């Protein structure tokens, strides 16, 4: 599988100031059962600094219970993946950024020789509504391949380039929106998922090639800025637009860039939020976010290995919507609840390097401030 090189580091030092110092301390207290459970004094505390996308998994009671059986207890702080790279990690046993290039960088910066562990991964995806699928199909943006629908990023960028509006694609009786055809995302200047979206768009805009030179990055940053500036105010956290999709709905987020894991976690939990009109599309091409544990201590290494390999812990990850690589075939990634296993994706690409992404985002930031066409 292709790695997600560089996307972790897309937010450069210039933009780091806007990163919110998100550090949530959640002590996962295991349920000490009266019977066979280990008492807390026999548990080894393992401190993890993790990207926020993995928080729900790491604080899942089932994960805590399983680790307790294995005599460990997690103490989890969360932070933006970019921030994890810059943090002093001496108080932690594991660093768990949302993708592997950041893990690479941590290992380089902190001179870590221990092996890193990809615990699980998930592709970037687009959530939409059933009533929009036929008009998007007619427009050539969406194509169905069996039960899986793909979202053609090249075709989409073409329509955005022509300033296409929803009103030109969709019968107003079906959906009335005078605005531009636009995927909603988080703030590209602070959020990792939006940075992945930019990585994807820049690949397509660069004639299906990873952007590798500064001049092209400047040019594409300016050209692609309207994907973000036209959204107006954007939310800082990946949960924000997805929550809008689930609660406010089509009036705010007709198309929203999310991680597949967010959608699948809701489906598997069967909490009623993924109603029959909710559709997940796979951008073509797409990019994987690989949640990669960097062990910093011996205890950290032991737990990272367990998280990556223990069948029960891997099942819990699948239940949280992630894909695991050591499952017994695709069906092993189904996660239960009658939810179909995630599709195998063929067209997966790498993001550009951190420097290139930073240059593009700098151009987008300038467009926000009225210094460029937005």
């Amino acid at each position: 599988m292709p790695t997600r090189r560089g996307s972790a580091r897309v937010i450069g030092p210039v933009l780091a100031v806007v990163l919110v110092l998100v550090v949530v301390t959640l002590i996962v207290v295991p349920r000490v059962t009266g019977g066979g459970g280990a008492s807390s004094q026999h548990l080894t505390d393992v401190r993890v600094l993790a990207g926020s996308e993995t928080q729900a998994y790491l604080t899942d009671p089932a994960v805590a219970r399983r680790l307790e059986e294995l005599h460990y207890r997690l103490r989890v702080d969360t932070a933006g993946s970019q921030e994890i790279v810059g943090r002093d990690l001496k108080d932690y046993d594991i660093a768990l950024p949302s993708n592997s290039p950041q893990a690479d960088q941590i290992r380089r910066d902190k001179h870590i020789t221990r092996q890193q562990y990809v615990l699980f991964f998930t592709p970037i995806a687009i959530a939409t509504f059933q009533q929009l699928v036929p008009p998007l199909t007619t427009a050539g943006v969406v194509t169905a391949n069996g039960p899986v629908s793909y979202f053609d990023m090249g075709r989409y960028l073409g329509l955005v380039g022509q300033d296409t509006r929803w009103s030109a694609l969709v019968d107003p009786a079906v959906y009335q929106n005078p605005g531009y055809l636009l995927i909603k995302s988080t703030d590209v200047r602070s959020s990792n998922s939006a940075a992945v979206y930019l990585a994807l768009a820049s690949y397509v805009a660069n004639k299906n090639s990873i952007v590798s030179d500064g001049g092209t990055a400047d040019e594409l940053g300016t050209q692609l800025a309207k994907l973000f500036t036209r959204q107006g105010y954007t939310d800082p956290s990946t949960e924000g637009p997805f929550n809008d999709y689930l609660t406010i709905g089509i009036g705010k987020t007709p198309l929203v860039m999310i991680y597949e894991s967010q959608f699948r976690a809701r489906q598997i939990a069967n909490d009623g939020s993924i109603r029959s009109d909710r559709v997940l599309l796979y951008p073509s091409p797409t990019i994987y976010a690989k949640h990669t544990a960097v062990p910093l201590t011996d205890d950290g290494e032991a737990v990272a290995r367990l998280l990556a390999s223990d069948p029960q812990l891997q099942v819990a990850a699948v239940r949280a919507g992630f894909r695991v690589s050591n499952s017994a075939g695709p069906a092993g990634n189904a996660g239960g609840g009658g939810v179909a296993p995630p599709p195998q994706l063929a067209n997966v690409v790498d993001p550009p390097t951190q420097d290139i992404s930073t240059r593009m985002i700098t151009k987008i930031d300038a467009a926000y401030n009225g210094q460029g066409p937005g």
Partner: protein
Amino acid sequence: MSTAITGRRGRPGRPGSSTRRPGSSTRRRQGASIRLGALGTVAALVLGVLAGCTDPGLGGGGDASTSPPAPSRPGTLRILAGSELKDLEPLLPDLKKATGITVTMSYTGTLDGADKILKGSADADAAWFSSDRYLRLLSGGAAKELVRTPVMLSPVVLGVRTPLAQQFGWTGTTKVSWGDVAAKVAAGQLTYAMTNPAASNSGFSALVGVAAAFAGTSDALQVSDIRAAPLTSFFGGQVLTAGSSGWLTDAFVKAPPATVGAMINYESVLLTLQQSGAAGPLTIIRPSDGVITADYPMALLADNRRDEYTRVVSWLRSPATQRRIQHDTSRRPVVPGVPLESRFGTGTPLELPFPATQQVADRLLAAYFDEYRRPTHAIYVLDVSGSMEGDRLAALQQALTGLTGADDSLAGRFARFRGREHVTMITFSSAVTGTRDFIINDPSPGSADLKAITDFAGSLRANGNTAVYTALDAAYTKAAQARKDEPNALTSIVLMTDGESNSGLDAGQFTGRYDARPAGARAVRTFAVVFGEADRGALSAIATHTGGEVFDATAPGVSLSDVFREIRGYQ
């Protein structure tokens, strides 16, 4: 951008509220002690430990407003909040039972709150306003929020008196756009109430939403998209303004129906008002060209209260609490899986984008005040009796110059005297000692128009007795003339005194003369400022009788400048 004024218990327009609050005695009791000066230090504003106290405002609230700030301690979450969050107070005892966390809330306006959060002087563990979007547009604002969690939803929409809605054909499932509303305004058939967008988030959301809708595309607004002509036409219909959504609702309920036909406010406020019937039958219009929805995010400010914060927001977002919030406060649930009650209507209103930059937001605000809204006429009645000598006179001078641009705080910048504003300064001691008129053609700080007011403030001298009613009577004579000369202007009176009236007309004489004035003059509200040894009861009576409000500049940590700035939200 909610107001600092906090006299109300719960949401206005609740069943029974109109009968509970009509008289001056209620207003006096609440007004004098509590409703005051939330613009000062947060310390002065803590309204008391709410957990375990189902109705903290009655009785004990006044004392609480003067208590020292609660210390930060484990198991406690001190929240700096917008006043519209007061209706969540009844949940706090159950929150305490379920989580063990004691939540205390203190209230301030959104811009003032943003100011404090930016400067790190909020002295709170968390912030909870109807929106944090403006704060997050400010440089350094986003970083102050360590975590943010939306708690509930309410779009800013329009409530129209039902007979009028029927006359317009705005019934059933008929689609009504902001453009349709503007057409009725332009035809002279519709006027409405809306909060001041620099003081209250509902007004700000309406301004941003309408500007986006009039751009015709529902795209994120750029400065170049702002269309002044339709906005000026639209805001020409705004005949009632206020610094807070709650106060606006009270004023709308009391207003003769013929004087104001509709109100722009949170859907939650309008649903509650519809339910209570306090303003008569109301038709809620969710404009088809889009709305802006408040998401009430709770933001963590203090790193050492993460655990408390997490437990509080988890409880608030639990399905049971979300159902209760929906039922009790008419706000929409923010978590998927809690179904929306049918009274919220069918269909999803289109969500208009909020601007991406402070530049656009500030440009809209400035243009609203200087160009779009009706011109204003602010009549100040200022006590320069002997007791004002010294610090008090200096405070008055500072308060006035603050409004000419000297106050560079976030809230201060939008509280300045604005373009097209007519300012009248009536000074009094034993009698009226002077009347000066100022017209602000150039509202930029340092302009000759504003310098004239600064010079006037500097020239004030104190001596003599206190003829409060004579001076106020003169102000109403001025107002009566102003209503003839400038019928479109929003005219209001600010009365500042530091003592009891001991000269000239008495209260009865003033009231008799006021009651005999034409309706246009009687519609001019008096916002009375308690300063020094002023007679709170007398000022409350004046405010109640004229539909105004009392503000306390004597509360600890509250300056006269704070109060003058806050009153700008009502002018």
